[in-house]
């Protein structure tokens, strides 16, 4: 890709990632949320990967990193659900809001996201879903680009043999 594209894409990708994070953080107030914000962050990564190529992209998502983020996202999501089950008897009960007044106040204070909206565990769920979506969509594109790279290498090898 051209030099102008490469010079533009890296700073733009950083700003798009910040927009994605803002979308995740405002999911309980504004249109947005974990999936939308995670998709925006993944889009910024894909932007860099397409322009620079998967090997030279300034953002490097290794296999271990993607596995860790996916696992952390899923575990924290299930963990919050189990916390609701343990403290209130209902899976994914919003412990930070406690609408049915089933848990003590100190439990509510622990699980409440610290902002003036007091949405409870919803912002935490948005954040972990955002992590999962970010690495999930990026993994799909990385896999396709690796397949494409392998196909090109194989076709070059076949061309040399003939």
């Amino acid at each position, binding site marked *: 890709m051209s030099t102008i594209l490469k010079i533009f894409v890296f700073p733009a990708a950083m700003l798009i*990632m*910040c927009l994605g*994070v803002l979308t995740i*953080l*405002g999911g309980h107030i504004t249109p947005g949320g974990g999936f939308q914000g995670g998709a925006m962050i993944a889009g910024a990564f894909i932007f860099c990967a397409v322009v620079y190529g998967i090997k030279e992209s*300034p*953002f*490097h998502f290794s296999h271990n990193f993607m596995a860790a983020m996916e696992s952390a996202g899923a575990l924290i999501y299930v963990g919050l659900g189990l916390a609701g089950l343990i403290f209130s008897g209902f899976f994914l009960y919003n412990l930070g809001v406690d609408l049915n007044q089933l848990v003590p106040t100190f439990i509510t204070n622990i699980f409440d996201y610290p*902002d*003036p909206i007091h949405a409870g565990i919803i912002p935490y769920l948005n954040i972990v879903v955002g992590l999962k979506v970010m690495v999930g969509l990026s993994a799909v594109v990385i896999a396709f680009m690796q397949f494409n790279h392998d196909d090109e290498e194989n076709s070059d090898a076949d061309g040399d043999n003939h």
Partner: protein
Amino acid sequence: MLYLGPTLFGFLLGFILGSRIKNNPESEIHFPYSSYIVVVIAALYMAWQIGPFPYYADSPLASGFVVCIIGIFAGKIVFGRQPTKT
């Protein structure tokens, strides 16, 4: 005073993303520190134009956006990937 939730988690998410930045020293493209200053200025302007979330009154600009870009640079400085030789 900034609200703890968006500040903390915006910085954390930005830090995670910044830790994945890897600069290739053999690349023809080189981003000096002045380019990052330009990015910060652009980010501050964007945050000013976006404004705070509804019902948020902590700052006149999008605090989550600003702390995210700070987190990206912090992650890059602290855990930036080692340059690889291609």
